[in-house]
């Protein structure tokens, strides 16, 4: 009896709830339907308003851009009426971001070469790519489609160069890099050149250097991008073929400043030498500091990316040994110091030569990308970073030097 009454109460309760919920739902449905009617009215008007709005926005934009270009004489619309004689060259590299010091060094080299060449009909358009593949793609699309460049000096970082090489190739625009050393670039295309040797050579040179110093256990700390991966592979291959042993290989993300994890694993392997392959000064500095903090007792080597002022300023980097490409002729080094007040920076000589390669092609009458390419295929001259002659892949051969950091300056070492 009690049970049934409870059940009865429960069912009534549920029923009541159900009924009230139904009512609420019905109410809501009504409300929603009202809303929909209202909104459809509003939307109708809103639709018209939207079109007018878009129209106004677009017209405003166009007016704005026209005003801007006529005031600044920008070439977006071809308003400055450049003569058909002008050759436009693009520059792609990191002008901001952690690799900016390389970008600016190369920019200086290019500007020096432009000035020294005394060419009047060449215009350089600079794009900042921050060593990022995506930025590089945006930049090259703009350079090719809007600025209509015939050639591009860049990119600085191998990863960015490889990302855009197919685009340059397809559009028959010459790309000449002063600093991209990844072995992959050798096969990147007919229009892809460089005035810096591929890391297949530096890897061999570095391996021999370490081996010749009597060190047999090598650990490698490398940046996880095209440059680092390429170099690491060649270094390891060469070192092992000489008879050495690579006991640890650790990679880090570009810009990462906490390398303790990687260094912990490296330390465990007890290497006699650590080779740092990095084109990110922030990471290089962090690595050097943390190596000291963790008490890793190995001889430290670095690729040419470490031959920069930030590293020189790092007090703990004393005795760092760097393998580097040519630092330029003494005359060029002196000119650089005179004009910029700075000690010669990596890749500036190579940048000077890359502009000059293009300049010589232009002086021979080349204007378009294909014409410049044909000229470069047969070019041979003596540049400030060495002899420039492109092989069938657009590569140059080169020599390397060894530098040691002594008292905050990089000193050429015998090797």
């Amino acid at each position, binding site marked *: 009896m009690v049970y049934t009454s409870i059940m009865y109460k429960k069912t009534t309760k549920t029923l009541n709830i159900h009924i009230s919920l139904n009512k609420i739902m019905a109410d809501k449905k009504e409300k929603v339907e009202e809303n929909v009617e209202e909104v459809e009215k509003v939307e109708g008007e809103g639709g018209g308003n939207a079109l007018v709005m878009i129209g106004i926005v677009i017209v405003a934009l166009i007016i704005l851009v026209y005003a801007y270009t006529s005031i600044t004489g920008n070439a977006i619309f071809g308003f400055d009426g450049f003569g058909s004689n002008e050759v436009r060259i693009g520059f792609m590299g990191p002008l901001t971001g*952690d690799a900016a010091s390389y970008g600016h060094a190369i920019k200086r080299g290019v500007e020096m070469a432009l000035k020294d060449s005394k060419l009047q009909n060449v215009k350089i358009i600079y794009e900042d790519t921050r060593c990022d593949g995506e930025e590089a793609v945006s930049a090259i699309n703009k350079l090719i489609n809007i600025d209509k460049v015939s050639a591009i000096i860049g990119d600085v970082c191998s990863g960015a160069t490889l990302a855009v090489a197919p685009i340059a190739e397809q559009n028959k625009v010459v790309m000449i890099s002063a600093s991209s050393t990844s072995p992959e670039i050798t096969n990147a295309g007919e229009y892809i050149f460089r005035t810096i040797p591929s890391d297949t050579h530096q890897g061999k040179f570095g391996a021999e250097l370490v081996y010749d110093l009597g060190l047999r256990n090598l650990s490698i700390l490398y940046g996880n991008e095209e440059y680092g991966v390429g170099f690491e592979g060649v270094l390891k291959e060469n070192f092992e073929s000489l008879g050495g042993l690579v006991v640890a290989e650790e990679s880090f993300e570009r810009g990462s400043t906490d390398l303790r994890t990687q260094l912990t694993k490296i330390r*465990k392997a007890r290497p006699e030498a650590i080779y740092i392959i990095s084109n990110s000064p922030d990471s290089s500095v962090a690595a050097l500091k943390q190596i000291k903090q963790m008490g890793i007792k190995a001889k430290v080597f670095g690729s040419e990316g470490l031959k920069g002022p930030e590293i020189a300023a790092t007090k703990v980097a004393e005795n760092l040994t760097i393998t580097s490409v040519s630092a330029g002729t003494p005359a060029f080094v002196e000119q650089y110091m005179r004009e910029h007040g700075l000690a010669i920076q990596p890749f500036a000589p190579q940048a000077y030569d890359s502009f000059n390669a293009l300049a010589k092609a232009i002086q021979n009458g080349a204007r378009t990308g294909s014409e410049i390419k044909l000229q470069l295929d047969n070019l041979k001259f003596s540049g400030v970073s060495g002899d420039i002659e492109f092989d069938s892949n657009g590569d140059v051969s080169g020599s390397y030097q060894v530098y040691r950091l002594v008292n905050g300056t990089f000193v050429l070492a015998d090797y």
Partner: protein
Amino acid sequence: MSSLLLQLTLNGLVAGSIYSLVASGFSLIYSTNRFMHFAHGVIVILAGYILFSFYSLIGFSFYYSVLSTLIYSSFIGFLINKTIYSPLQKKKTSSVILLIASISLLILFQNLIQLFFGAGVKDIDYIDIQKGLEFYEATITQLQIITIIISSILCVGLFIFMKKTSLGKEMRAVSNNKELADIVGINSSKVKDLSFFIGSFLAGLAGILISLEQNVSPSMGTNLIIKGFTGAVIGGISSVPASIFGSYIIGLVENLGIAFLPSGFKEAISFFLLFIFLLFRPEGLASLRRRVK
């Protein structure tokens, strides 16, 4: 192998301390206001930049710079609440909107910093680099030890604060039931303001230690708040001591995990843990204690 594990454990404790410094402020703000203040991460980094500006750029003394940083951070956090979150809350927007607003603030501040200071890393050259203290082939630097100590003190201190002091209790009251707290006579808006003040003060502290230890770059804020948030979720986001505890767990798991995995997977470990916990135990480990009771 054991020296490797010892070093990784130490690394984990250091990482855990850093994350817990971030998580503590975040959790304090969440537990009082009941929404996620993701922009907390960028206050941490902003503090690092303020320290950099005062100490390395302008050249004020170190202690003056530290003090200013703490004061400025607290104020900025307080201002953000006053100008963005409070107005939104008055309109009774859901915590999801507040979440999105806080993420927008995070992106906004991060990019403002990048605009003004550049995207590179800034070095605060206060500590000399030298080899750390060593035991059993594992090294740890003095600054790292100090960080661990401060973080532990914070853990205990905040625990006492939340449980014993009247302000702490008021904060918990407001978070539990704002209306009731108002009725009982607690000035809930003042309590909320204070929570932002104190939480951002903690962010400032975190920023100072982190920037001394690792330097600062604009994108660090996002990374830190993700880790701090993960730690808080694992520990129990509404309890400050639990969040700190959870952060240590993240730090340790991350670092010990890469003994077995390639180093690149360190971040992935945290993300996976975050996702798993959000799916299966969003209240965090702290809820286990309550269930046992």
